[in-house]
């Protein structure tokens, strides 16, 4: 507690003891606050903390004592207050004036400066005359004034009795200083606010000490002394001032060789320095000389700068480094030098992997938004939290520094799991906390792992974290550096890839088709479940052998049975570059009766550059298909043969029928003509020799002959409509019906008959056959209406369940519906030939024609109530 010892305070309180009035009370309260305040400050001053604690306790007791006495005095000696006022004012003034370390200011209720001590003058740089009466907000930086901080702090002090805090303040000359402030509300005995006391102490040095502790402290030294980092500090002009062991190791110079001699530009690739200078000149719009300036220009402008640089070793060899440049400033912010921290990118154990990783790392570092750097002390408390970390995690550095460990921004479950796994692996209990994150690094094991970070807003993201232990010169761990990259994209890509692979794997494994993957030398790498099933493997290992070993178990032959040498096997052909598809092969297990027919396909798989990587062979069992195909082929052959046979038979039958009809047509009627003709000759030439009975017999012979002639004609007709070719034309049925009706009328002009024929009936049909239909039906109607005094015959169309049905209705003799099914049979007659002559073939012919056209015909009727014939086409 610099400048205020317990003894001195006590001496001051002796003075106060003799004083009266509220100003005295203010002084005591101020001093008490001051002592507490000093104790608070002591937190930053570790070596004094014990002494401080002791003195603070003493002070506190004294304070309580004094306050008690003061209250007594105030109450008892109130009357004397007025007269003692001037005296005590003066004493207080002197006391306050003596406090050089503190700015002790009295403010009125509105925050205007009411009194000003020499401490205030010293701390803030205003003379009393300059400042009294002005608002205390002038001490605040403009942005804080704009944010209403001064007024808010007064309000809080008024409400709570006091307000305490740290912050930047501005001196009269505009410079800033970091200070600790205590504002106490001053109230009179009625509780009315009279004003405030404001106590300010410049703790910039304390703050600087704190920074220095961090910056130049053990942590910094650890980085400095780390053999993995080259740390080069220069003066403002670039002359190397510090050259750490890492730099010595990496660059091959001893510190003595470079210190005060050269700048880092001289150990950098000259071309790169020139290129960098040019690029920066362009970027910043000002001429940058290609030398040290080019290396630190951005840092000198306060811009975070991390870049790749090729360092040149003493022996002339080169190595790529990632260099982070920081400007070193004094308390006034003036640049006094630069710190260049470099890591050697080549110094990796596995060159290839390291190169890839280093590439990614470099890019990540370059784009600091993708790169979080968190440094902790040995216990894990975060000491450094870079811009990348701020961006990724959503915390500001101030929120986490000195507050939490990285474990607190990591997924708790993962830490528990990691601790458990590590405990098991290392055979020792690892606590699920920060220890779990750095345990391996703490044991000197390079550790890069995946971790889910939790952002301030609670959202998560996967990161790849590289952990390095930071050690002091003695090798003791003084902290850890956790470098993290946001792994979301890669994680998603990995997940997608893994999911794809898993899906593909599942699909392949569940295919019915066998899939074999083979190396280019014929070694089988993978085969799916179907392959094992298809080959009847008992032992899964059987499917993982070399192609050549299959020849010991299997024998392959073509579909035609020709033996296939090993070099003609499907896989062998694929390996030679053939692309196979549907190659059918008979496969047999040697010395067993197991044999199948397989269909093989496949091709070589090539990389993007067209280089073959492996062969893929697909196998499907087509034994059954093959057998089925054989059967079908046989059936088809049989069927074809049978069709030909049947067709021939049919043709023969048709020809026979044709010949028969022809023969009937020609030969059967000739004898009838003889019968009829000669009967007639007898009647004509020998009528005188025949009595009436004889003539009657001859007449009967003639009638019989003629009737048989009709029968033959009708049968031939029927046969003809069944055999003849059919055409399909658009036929005007109305017109045709009228023509047929005219024929009827012409055959018996004496008959009173009315034809009612619908107009516009058109159908697509065979005109010749349809005419036979109409002639038969009209003829039928004409015949059965012969005994009607006035016959009526109607032809039209009706709708029968959505189908056009033509009808022919007459008012003739009709028929007994019981026999309607017999109407259309050949030689079926429902009437006596005497009443209505006919052969009984006409309706059969109608039915044959209609059915041939895909239609149907039916009849309705009752005896003596006419008949209606319907037909569709």
């Amino acid at each position: 507690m610099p400048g205020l010892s317990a003894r001195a305070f006590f001496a001051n309180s002796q003075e106060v003891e003799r004083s009266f009035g509220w100003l005295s009370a203010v002084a005591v309260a101020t001093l008490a606050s001051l002592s507490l305040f000093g104790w608070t400050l002591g937190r930053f001053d570790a070596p004094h903390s014990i002494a401080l604690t002791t003195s603070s306790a003493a002070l506190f007791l004294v304070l309580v004592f004094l306050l008690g006495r003061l209250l007594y005095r105030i109450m008892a000696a109130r009357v004397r207050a007025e007269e003692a006022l001037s005296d005590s004012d003066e004493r207080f003034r002197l006391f306050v004036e003596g406090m050089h370390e503190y700015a002790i200011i009295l403010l009125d209720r509105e925050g205007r400066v009411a009194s000003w001590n020499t401490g205030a003058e010293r701390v803030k740089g205003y003379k009393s005359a300059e400042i009294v009466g002005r608002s205390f907000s002038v001490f605040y930086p403009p942005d804080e004034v704009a944010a209403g901080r001064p007024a808010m702090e007064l309000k809080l002090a008024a409400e709570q009795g006091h307000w305490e805090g740290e912050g930047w303040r501005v001196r009269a000359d505009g410079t800033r200083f970091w200070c600790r402030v205590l504002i106490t509300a001053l109230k009179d005995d009625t509780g009315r606010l009279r004003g405030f006391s404001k106590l300010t102490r410049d703790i910039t040095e304390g703050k600087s000490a704190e920074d220095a502790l961090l910056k130049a402290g053990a942590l910094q030294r650890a980085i400095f002394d780390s053999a993995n980092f080259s740390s080069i500090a220069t003066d403002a002009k670039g002359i190397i001032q510090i050259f750490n062991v890492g730099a010595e190791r990496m660059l091959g110079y001893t510190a003595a060789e470079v210190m005060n001699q050269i700048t880092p530009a001289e150990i950098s690739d000259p071309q790169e320095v020139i290129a960098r200078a040019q690029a920066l000149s362009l970027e910043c719009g000002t001429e940058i000389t290609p030398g040290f300036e080019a290396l630190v220009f951005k840092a000198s402008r306060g811009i975070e700068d991390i870049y790749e640089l090729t360092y040149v070793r003493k022996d002339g060899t080169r190595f790529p480094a990632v260099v982070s440049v920081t400007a070193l400033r004094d308390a006034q912010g003036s640049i006094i030098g630069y710190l260049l921290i470099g890591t050697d990118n080549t110094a990796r154990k596995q060159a290839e992997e390291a190169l890839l990783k280093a590439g990614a790392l470099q890019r990540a570092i370059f784009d600091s938004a993708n790169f979080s750097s968190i440094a902790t002390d040995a216990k894990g408390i975060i000491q450094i939290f870079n811009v990348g970390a701020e961006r990724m995690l959503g915390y500001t550095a101030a929120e986490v520094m000195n507050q939490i460990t990285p474990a607190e921004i990591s997924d708790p479950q993962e830490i528990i799991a990691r601790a458990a796994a590590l405990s098991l692996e290392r055979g020792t209990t690892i606590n699920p906390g920060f220890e779990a994150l750095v345990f391996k690094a703490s044991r000197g094991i390079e550790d890069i792992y995946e971790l889910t970070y939790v952002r301030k807003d609670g959202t998560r993201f996967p990161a790849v974290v590289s952990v390095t232990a930071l050690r002091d010169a003695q090798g003791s761990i003084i902290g850890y550096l956790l470098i993290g990259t946001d792994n979301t994209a890669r994680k998603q890509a990995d997940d997608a890839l893994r999911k794809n692979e898993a899906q593909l794997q599942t699909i392949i494994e569940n295919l019915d088709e066998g899939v074999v993957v083979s190396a280019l030398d014929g070694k089988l790498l993978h085969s799916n479940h179907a392959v094992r099933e298809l080959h009847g493997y008992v032992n899964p290992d059987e499917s993982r052998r070399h192609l050549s070993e299959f020849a010991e178990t299997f024998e392959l032959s073509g579909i035609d049975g020709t033996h296939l040498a090993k070099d003609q096997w499907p896989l062998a052909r694929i390996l030679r570059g053939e692309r196979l598809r549907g190659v059918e092969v008979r496969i047999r297990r040697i010395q067993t009766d197991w044999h199948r027919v397989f269909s093989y396909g496949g091709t070589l798989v090539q990389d993007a550059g067209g280089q073959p990587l492996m062969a893929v062979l697909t196998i499907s069992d087509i034994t059954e298909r093959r057998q089925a195909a054989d059967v079908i082929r046989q059936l088809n052959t049989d069927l074809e043969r049978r069709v030909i046979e049947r067709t021939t038979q049919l043709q023969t039958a048709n020809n026979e029928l044709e010949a028969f009809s022809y023969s009937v047509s020609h030969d059967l009627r000739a004898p009838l003509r003889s019968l009829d003709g000669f009967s007639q000759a007898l009647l004509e030439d020998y009528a005188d020799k025949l009595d009436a009975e004889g003539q009657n017999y001859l007449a009967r012979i003639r009638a019989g002959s003629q009737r048989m002639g009709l029968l033959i004609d009708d049968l031939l007709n029927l046969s003809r409509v069944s055999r003849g070719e059919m055409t399909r034309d658009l036929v005007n049925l109305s017109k045709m019906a009228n023509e047929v009706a005219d024929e009827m009328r012409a055959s018996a002009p004496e008959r009173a008959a009315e034809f009612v024929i619908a107009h516009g009936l058109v159908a697509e049909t065979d005109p010749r056959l349809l005419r036979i239909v109409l002639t038969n039906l009209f003829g039928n109607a004409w015949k059965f209406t012969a005994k009607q005094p006035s016959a009526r015959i109607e032809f039209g169309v009706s709708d029968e369940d959505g189908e056009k049905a033509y009808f022919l209705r007459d008012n003739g003799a009709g028929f007994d519906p019981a026999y309607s099914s017999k109407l259309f049979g050949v030689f079926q007659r429902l009437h006596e030939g005497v009443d209505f002559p006919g052969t009984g073939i006409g309706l059969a012919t109608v039915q044959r024609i209609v059915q041939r056209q895909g239609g149907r015909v039916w009849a309705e009727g009752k005896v003596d109530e006419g008949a209606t014939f319907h037909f569709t086409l």
Partner: protein
Amino acid sequence: MNERTILLVEDNADDELLTLRALKKNNVQNSLVVARDGVQALDYVFGTGAYAGRDVTVLPGLVLLDLKLPKIDGLEVLRRIRADERTRRMPVTVLTSSKEEQDVIKSYDLGANSYIRKPVDFTQFTEAVRQLGMYWLMLNEVSP
């Protein structure tokens, strides 16, 4: 009626007799030559075989040709008659039992002048023959 000969090509003796009777009943008195098969018919027309030496410039005024004939059938006879320049325009009437469509079509295709189907009813048959004789032997002007 005139002197033009009728060539009746008919293998059926009954039909021959009935045809003669019908002609007679219709007072057709032209000379009548009967050929009982296709060969005889062609021999008569072209003056070959049994009719070698016949003056073939004298063509029958009418040929009544049955289709179904022994040896050479009626359609072939018709084809040969029409194929020969001398007989190309000679009137040939097919007189047969059949009215099979193919017969009718082929007959006309080969150049038959007319196609008559012999009715079973002799009365009708007589009427047909009457009209035939009337038309071809009396009304029809033969090609010069």
